[in-house]
C-alpha cells in the first residue's frame, strides 16, 4: 500500500439477503495492472461480490473506492460508466439476439436514418472480435446458436471491449476449450494498466496469471496471500477453514460386511454432462459425492433416480440391471431407490397438502381399505415416521407450505424412508436448513445405513461429506476425478480433487 493509487479498495463490505448473510466482511485492495485472484468455496460470497461491483445489487455496509473515489453503482450501466465491466459466470447474453446486438447492448450504433444499423453494428463487432482474436464467431449469428464455449468467449469479449479500468472475470474458463486465448487477453489488458479481479476454482490458472490472491470463506476475507509463497494445500485449508477440527472420529458404518452383490453398481454411465462414470455402493455404506457446481452430479443422481435419461451404461441394483424411467419406477420394482431432489419446493413436495398427506403419499395404496384411505392406519404410520425424523407431531396437520425449510426437509426424508426405499439418493439434503435439523438428518442417514440401507449423498458442504461418508467420490467435468476414504478423506483433499487437481496437490 505505498506507491500507486490502488484501483479498487473494499473495506468490510457486507450484504444480506433476508436472513442469509451472503457477505459479512469483505476486504480487498487491487492495484492498477494487477491480476488479483479471488478464491473460495461455493457459497463463500463470490457471486454476491461480483453483483455488488457490477451494480446489480447494493451493499448493506462497508465502503468501496475505485481509484480513491467512492464507488457504489446502482445499475450495471453506472458500474460500466465508472470503468468496471464484468464477464459473468452465468453469462449475461440474450440467446434470441445476434452476437453483434448483444455486444452493443444497451445502445446500438445508428445509421444515417437514426435507427439501429445492423451493418454498422456488425462491422464494429467484427473489428472487436478481430481485435481479441476471435475468428470463428459470426457477428450475425444468434447467440442461442453458439456453443457454450463460444458464448463464454462472447461474454468475455463484451467485457474487455469496453476497455475497463477494473475487469471482473467470474469463472471465465469454466467452458473454454482453449484458456490460452483468455490468458493472452488478460496479460494484454493488465499490461495496459487494467486491474483484473480473477475468480476461479482452478489454482493452476490462478498461479499462472496472478501474483496475489484473496481467500474468501463464509462471506469473509480470510486473507490476501502472495501466491508464489503459498502452497496449494495452504490455500485449500484457508478456503475450507477449521483445520484443527478436521480429525473427527468417524465410525465407518460399512464395517459390517454384507454378503451378496452391491446395492448399486454403476458401470460406464453416460448421460447429459456425465461422461462414463462407474462406481459401486455397498450395502450399509454411505458414499459421498463431492463436486463444484455443474460437474454432472445433478445429472448423475437424477439418472439413478430415473428422473433423467441415460445415454449408455448400466445401473444395477442388488445385482439386477435396472432402467428406471421415473422416480416412481426407481422406487418400486425391486430397485428400491428413494430420491430426495435438490428443489424440494418444485420437485419434492406438495405445498398445499398437509404434512401428513405428504409423508404418506408414496404408500397410500397400502393404507387403503376397500379403496378408501384408512385414516387411522395412515395416522399411525405417519406418526411413527415423524418420530424417526424428529418432526414434532403438531406439524403433521399443517400445510407443508407453513413449515420451515428444515421441517419440510424432515418431512420429505420421512416420506422417502416410509416408502420402503433400501437405497437413498440424496441431493444436498441439508441445503438451507438450520444446524439442529442438520444433526437430525445426519442421525437419520446413519441409522438408515446401520440398518443395512445404502446412501449416495451429494452435498455442497465438504465438511458434511467428510463427517458423514464412509467413502467419497469427487466428480470433475462429468467424470470421477478421484476417491477418498478413511484417513485420507479430508476437506482440503476433496476440494483438490473436485477442482481437478491431482491428489498430491493437497499433500
Amino acid at each position, binding site marked *: 500500500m505505498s506507491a500507486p493509487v490502488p484501483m479498487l479498495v473494499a473495506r468490510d463490505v457486507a450484504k444480506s439477503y433476508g436472513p442469509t448473510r451472503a457477505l459479512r466482511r469483505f476486504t480487498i485492495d487491487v492495484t492498477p495492472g494487477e491480476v488479483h485472484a479471488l478464491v473460495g468455496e461455493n457459497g463463500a460470497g463470490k457471486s454476491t461480490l461480483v453483483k455488488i461491483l457490477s451494480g*446489480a445489487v447494493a451493499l448493506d455496509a462497508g465502503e468501496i473506492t475505485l481509484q480513491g473515489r467512492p464507488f457504489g453503482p446502482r445499475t450495471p450501466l453506472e458500474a460500466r460508466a465508472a470503468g468496471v465491466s464484468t464477464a459473468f459466470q*452465468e453469462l449475461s447474453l*440474450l440467446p*434470441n439476439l445476434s452476437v453483434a*446486438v448483444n455486444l452493443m447492448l444497451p445502445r*446500438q450504433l445508428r445509421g444515417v436514418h437514426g435507427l439501429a444499423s445492423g451493418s454498422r453494428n456488425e462491422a464494429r463487432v467484427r473489428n472487436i472480435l478481430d481485435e481479441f482474436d476471435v475468428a470463428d464467431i459470426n457477428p450475425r449469428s444468434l447467440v442461442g*446458436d453458439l456453443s457454450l*464455449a463460444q458464448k463464454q468467449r462472447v461474454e468475455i469479449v463484451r467485457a474487455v471491449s469496453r476497455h475497463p479500468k477494473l475487469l471482473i472475470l467470474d469463472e471465465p474458463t469454466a467452458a473454454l*476449450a482453449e484458456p490460452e486465448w483468455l490468458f493472452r487477453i488478460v496479460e494484454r489488458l493488465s499490461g495496459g494498466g487494467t486491474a483484473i479481479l480473477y475468480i476461479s476454482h482452478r489454482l493452476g490458472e490462478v498461479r499462472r496469471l496472478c501474483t496475489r490472491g484473496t481467500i474468501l470463506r463464509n462471506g469473509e476475507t480470510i486473507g490476501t496471500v502472495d501466491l508464489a509463497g503459498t502452497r496449494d494445500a495452504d490455500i485449500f485449508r484457508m478456503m475450507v477453514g477449521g483445520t484443527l477440527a478436521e480429525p473427527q472420529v468417524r465410525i465407518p458404518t460399512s464395517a459390517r460386511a454384507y454378503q451378496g452383490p452391491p446395492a448399486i453398481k454403476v458401470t460406464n454411465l453416460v448421460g447429459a454432462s456425465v461422461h462414463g462414470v462407474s462406481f459401486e455402493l455397498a450395502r450399509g455404506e454411505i458414499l459421498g459425492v463431492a463436486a463444484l457446481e455443474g460437474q454432472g452430479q445433478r445429472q448423475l443422481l437424477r439418472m439413478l433416480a430415473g428422473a433423467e435419461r441415460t445415454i449408455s451404461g448400466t445401473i444395477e441394483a442388488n445385482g439386477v440391471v435396472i432402467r428406471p424411467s421415473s422416480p416412481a419406477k426407481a422406487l418400486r420394482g425391486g430397485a428400491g431407490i428413494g430420491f430426495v431432489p435438490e428443489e424440494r419446493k418444485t420437485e419434492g413436495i406438495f405445498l398445499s397438502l398437509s404434512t401428513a398427506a405428504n409423508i404418506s403419499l408414496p404408500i397410500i395404496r397400502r393404507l387403503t381399505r376397500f379403496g378408501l384411505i384408512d385414516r387411522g392406519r395412515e395416522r399411525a404410520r405417519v406418526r411413527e415416521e415423524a418420530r424417526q425424523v424428529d418432526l414434532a407431531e403438531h406439524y403433521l396437520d399443517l400445510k407443508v407450505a407453513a413449515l420451515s425449510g428444515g421441517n419440510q426437509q424432515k418431512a420429505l426424508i420421512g416420506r422417502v424412508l416410509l416408502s420402503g426405499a433400501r437405497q437413498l439418493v440424496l441431493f444436498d439434503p441439508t441445503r438451507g436448513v438450520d444446524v439442529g435439523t442438520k444433526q437430525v438428518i445426519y442421525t437419520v442417514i446413519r441409522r438408515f445405513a446401520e440398518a443395512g440401507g445404502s446412501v449416495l449423498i451429494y452435498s455442497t458442504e465438504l465438511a458434511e461429506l467428510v463427517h458423514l461418508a464412509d467413502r467419497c467420490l469427487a466428480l470433475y467435468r462429468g467424470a470421477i476425478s478421484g476417491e477418498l476414504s478413511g484417513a485420507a478423506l479430508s476437506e482440503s483433499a476433496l476440494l483438490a480433487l473436485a477442482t481437478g487437481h491431482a491428489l498430491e496437490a493437497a499433500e
Partner: protein
Amino acid sequence: MTMRAQTGTSGTTIFHPLRRAFGNGTLIVAAIYVALFALYAATQKGVFAISEINDLFNNALPLSVAAAGGTFVVLTRGFDLSVGGVVALSNVMVATVVGDGWPGGLAGLAMVLAIGLIVGAFNGFLVAYVGLQSIASTLGTMIVCSGLALVVLDAPGGTVPDFISNNLTDLAFDTIPVAALVVAALMAIWLVLRRTDFGIALYAIGADETAAGLAGISVARTKFFAYCIAGMLYGVAGYTLSAQTATGNPNSGNAYLLLTFAAIAVGGTAFSGGRGGVIGSMLGAATLTLLQKVLFSTGVSSFYTGIFQGAVMILAVLIAALSARLARGAQA
C-alpha cells in the same frame, strides 16, 4: 466438440436470412392467411372487388390494432388483460361525448389515446416498478375499465359521429381502404421501433430479464413503456371498433380479451417472451377475422366459429413449435 460447433454455425447461416426477414411465426401466419384467402376466393364470388377488400380490412382492423398493442407486452413475457376494458371504455366514450366533424374526430382520437395511456401507465407502474404479476394487475384494470364503461353507458346505444364512422371505413382516393392505411402506418411504426434500443430491449427482456439487466438495459423503464404503448393501441382499437359499429356497447370489449391473445399466438409471438412481432400479430388478427368470413361463405353455422378459431390457433402454435424443433434438429 469442435465438429458440433461448426455444423451449428453452418446451420445458422441457412436459417438466418429467412428468420431475420420475417421471424418464423410471421412466415407461417402469412402462409395460413394466403391458404385461407384462396379458400375464400374459391367459395365466394367477387372477393377481389374493392368494396369486398375494404370490408376485409375494416372487419380485421380493431382486432389487429388490439393485437399489435398486446404484442408489446407479450414480447416482454407479460400478459395484458386490460385490452378488454380499454376497448369497451374507448368505444362508449366515442359513442357518447365526441362531437362531429374533423375537430370532433381528432379530439376523440386524442381522448382514446389518453384513456389508453392512463390505463397503460398504471399497468406499467404496477408491473415494472411495484413488481406485481402482470396477469393479476391487468385483470384488475380490465375489470375497473369495464365497470367504468357501464357507468358511462349502461346499455348498448349512443351514436358515433358520422365523421369517424364514415371516414375510417371508407376508401381513400376511391382506391385504398383507409383501414389499410392505418394498418400500414402501424406496421411502419413497428418497423421503426424494433430498430431502436427500446425495440431491442423488448426482445432482450422477454428472453432473460436478469441477463438483460446485467447487459445494461433499464428493464423497468422498458416494461413501463411497453404497457403504455399497448394501452394507447387498445384505445385506438376501441376507436376503430366504434367506426365499424357506429354505436356504443359497454360489453364490446369482452370478445377482444381472448381473441387478442389468440391473434398474438397465431401470429407467432411466443407467450414465453422474446420471440415474434407486431406484424405477425396483425396478420394473426386478420386470419381469425377472415376465418369467420370463410365459414360464413362456406355455409357453416356461425355457432362453429369459435371451434374453428381455436383450432387454427392450436395449428399455428403447433407449426411454430414443429418448425423450431426442425431448425434445432438441423443444427444438431
